[in-house]
C-alpha cells in the first residue's frame, strides 16, 4: 500500500502523469506560487503544480477541462490543463485579480480587481475584456445568480454588495453590509444572496428579488473573543440545507441551518481558516487554513474533523475536480 502511494507520488512529481485514484481537491497556495492536488480517496497530496505569482481564486470550467487561477501578483488569470498541469494560456484580468466567478454560460469570468476598485468581465473564448465596472474599494467576493442575470461584487473597504446586471454590465443596486465583506453566494435557487463580513462578524442574508435584507447571522465561539470570530468563505451542503462557514482566526468552521439561520455547530480546524470546497456527494468538506498551511477534512455527517493534510504556504482557495 505504501509502495503504491509512493509510486504515484513519484510519477506525479516527475511529470509523467498521475494515478487517478479518486476525485481531487485543488488548493491554491498564496505564498508558494503553487497548487496542491489532494486525492480524495487517499487524502494525500498527489501533485504540486507551479503557477503564477500569488495564486488565490481558483475554479474549474463546467466540464472540468480547464482550471482558472487568479495569479494576483502576475496580474493575470491563468488557464491550466488539469491533466498535464501546464499553463495553456493567460487571460487579461485587470490588475491584481483576487477572486472570480464563472458565469453559468461557462464562458465569462467576473473578476474582482482588488487594487483597482474594478470588476472585470473576461470572455474566456475570445480572451478579451468585455467590460470593466467601477465598484467600491478592494473588491473581493464574487457571485453570479444561477440564471446568470445578476453578478455580485463585494468591496472590503466600501462595505457593500454591488449588484451587476449582466446584460448591461452595469450596477443596478448597492447594498451596505457589515465591515469587510469577503464572500458572496446565491443560494436556494438564486432567491437568497448571502454575504459574509469578516470584521463585522456576520453574514447578511438578502432577498434577491427586492435586494432587501432578510436577516443577519451572528457567530459566537466559546472561549474566543467576538473580535476574532471572522466569517470569510462559505459553501452549502447538498440541497442548500446547511452552510459551512470559515471563521478565520477563530480557527473554527460554523455549521448554519439555512432555513432557520441558526448556527448548529462549531468545528475546530486549522489556523485562519479561509475557503473550502466539498467532494462529489458533499459528504466531506476540505477547508484551507492559511496560517497553519494545511487543509482540514471534515466529515459532514458527524461534523467532525477527520484529517489534516499539509499543503503549501498560505493555502487560499479550494476547488473540487472529479476524475471519472
Amino acid at each position: 500500500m505504501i509502495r503504491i502511494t509512493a509510486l504515484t507520488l513519484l510519477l506525479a512529481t516527475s511529470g509523467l502523469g498521475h494515478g487517478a485514484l479518486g476525485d481531487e481537491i485543488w488548493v491554491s497556495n498564496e505564498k508558494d506560487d503553487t497548487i496542491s492536488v489532494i486525492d480524495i480517496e487517499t487524502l494525500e497530496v498527489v501533485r504540486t503544480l507551479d503557477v503564477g505569482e500569488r495564486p488565490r481564486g481558483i475554479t474549474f470550467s463546467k466540464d472540468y477541462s480547464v482550471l482558472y487561477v487568479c495569479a494576483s501578483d502576475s496580474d493575470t488569470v491563468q488557464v491550466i490543463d488539469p491533466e498535464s498541469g501546464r499553463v495553456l494560456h493567460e487571460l487579461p484580468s485587470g490588475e491584481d485579480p483576487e477572486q472570480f466567478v464563472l458565469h453559468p454560460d461557462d464562458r465569462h469570468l467576473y473578476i474582482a480587481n482588488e487594487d483597482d476598485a474594478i470588476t472585470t468581465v473576461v470572455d474566456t473564448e475570445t480572451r478579451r475584456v468585455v467590460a470593466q465596472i467601477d465598484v467600491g474599494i478592494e473588491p473581493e467576493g464574487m457571485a453570479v445568480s444561477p440564471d446568470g442575470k445578476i453578478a455580485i461584487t463585494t468591496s472590503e473597504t466600501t462595505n457593500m454588495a454591488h449588484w451587476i446586471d449582466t446584460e448591461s454590465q452595469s450596477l443596478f443596486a448597492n447594498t451596505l453590509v457589515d465591515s469587510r465583506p469577503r464572500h458572496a453566494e446565491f443560494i436556494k435557487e438564486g432567491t437568497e444572496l448571502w454575504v459574509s463580513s469578516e470584521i463585522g462578524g456576520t453574514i447578511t442574508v438578502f432577498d434577491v428579488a427586492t435586494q432587501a435584507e432578510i436577516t443577519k447571522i451572528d457567530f459566537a465561539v466559546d472561549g474566543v473573543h467576538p473580535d476574532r470570530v471572522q466569517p470569510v468563505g462559505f459553501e452549502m451542503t447538498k440541497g442548500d440545507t446547511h452552510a459551512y462557514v470559515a471563521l478565520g482566526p477563530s480557527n473554527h468552521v460554523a455549521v448554519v441551518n439555512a432555513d432557520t439561520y441558526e448556527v448548529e455547530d462549531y468545528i475546530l480546524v486549522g489556523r485562519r481558516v479561509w475557503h473550502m470546497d466539498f467532494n462529489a456527494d458533499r459528504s466531506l468538506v476540505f477547508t484551507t487554513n492559511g496560517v497553519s498551511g494545511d487543509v482540514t477534512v471534515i466529515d459532514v455527517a458527524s461534523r467532525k474533523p477527520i484529517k489534516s493534510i499539509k499543503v503549501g504556504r498560505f493555502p487560499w482557495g479550494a476547488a473540487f475536480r472529479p476524475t471519472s
Partner: protein
Amino acid sequence: MKKTITGLMLSLWAGFAPAQDVTVAWLEIARDVPPTLSNLDPIPDDLGHAGVMTALADNQTTGRFLGQAWQVEAHRVALGEDPGPAAEAAFAAADFVIVDAPAEALLSIAALDGAAGKLLYNSGAGEPALRDDLCRANLLHTLPSTAMRTDALAQFLVRKRWDDVVMVAGGHPGDQAYAAAMERSLAKFGLRLSARKEWRFDADMRRNAAQEVPLFTQDFGQYDALIVADELHDFGRYILFNTWEARPVIGSEGLQAEAWGPAVEQWGAAQLQSRFEEAHGRRMQPRDYAAWAALRAIGEAVTRTKAADAATVRSYLLGPDFELAGFKGRPLTFRGWNGQLRQPIPLLHPRALVASAPLEGFLHQRTELDTLGIDAPETRCTAFD
C-alpha cells in the same frame, strides 16, 4: 446638507437619497523639531496629510454609491504663529476637524469657543494626559497614546520573560515623556527596571558609537533587554550592536511599538500600504495612519447613520455599533470613557512584524485591547461621563 445636481443624479442611479456634502478640515500646526545626527529619515512634508488624502479617496469611492460628496480643507499654521485664526477658519468650514499638533496647541484649539459643538480628532499627539486628566468631550484620539505603545512592549517583555531591563533616556521632553510612560508600563506588568541612565553625549555618534556606547552600557551589568527612550530618533540607532553585553534593544529603536509601519502587511494591510505608496511615493507612518483612521471613522459614521452632524457622528462613534476595519486584524472602536481609538499595536523592526499586542494571554473582562493604555477604572477623564 446641500443637494448638488451630480450628487442627486448619482443617488437616484444608485437607489439612494438624499445627497450629502461632507467637508472635513485638516488642521496642521508646525512643530519645532531639533536636528538629528543621522540624515537617513527626513520627516515628510505631508506627514499626516497624506493619510487624510488616502482616506478621502476611500470615502469618495464609497460615497459615490451613496450620494455623498467628500471634501477636505487643509489649514496650516507655521512655527511661531498663533493657531487661533486657522482653527477658527477650520471650525467655520467643517463640523469635523482632524488636528496634527503638539499637545499644548491641541488643547488650546480644543478650548476655543468655535470648537464647541465640533468634533476634533487628535492624530498627532501621543501624550497620555490628553486622554486622562486633560481630556475633552469634543476631542477623540486616533493616534495611540504613548502608554498604549509602552504597554505593548511591556507585554512583549513579559512574554519573552525578559523581566530585568535597563533604560537609556534622551534629554528631549518627548524622550523623557516616553521614559515616564515606559516606567509606568514596567510597573503595571511587574517588570524590574534595574537601572536608568540619561544620554548626555553631544559628540557625533556616527563616528564615536563604537568607542562610547560599550563603555556607557558596561556598568549596567547583567540584564535581559535595553530600552531606548529616543523619540526624536537621534542617538538610539547607534546603541544597537554597540552595547557592552549582547542584548536586544527595544523602545524607540530596535523593536518598536507603533500605530503603523512599513512591515505591517497582514490582515489586508498590504492593500492600504500599496494604495498609500502609489498616491504619495513613500511609506505610511503612524501619524498618517491615525489621520487616515480619523477620516475613515467619520466616513463609516456618516454612511451608517446617514447624518453628517458632529453630535450624531460623535454618539455613533462612541456607541456600540461603530466598528472600523483598520487592517489590524480586528475591529477598531472608541473607548467611551476618554475617546481613544482602541487598536492593536504592532511590534515591529524595520523588516518584519514581530508580534501584535495585545499578546495572547493578557486577558481583560471587556476586550483584550483594553490591556493597552489607560483603562476605565484608572482614568481621570470625566468629560465623557
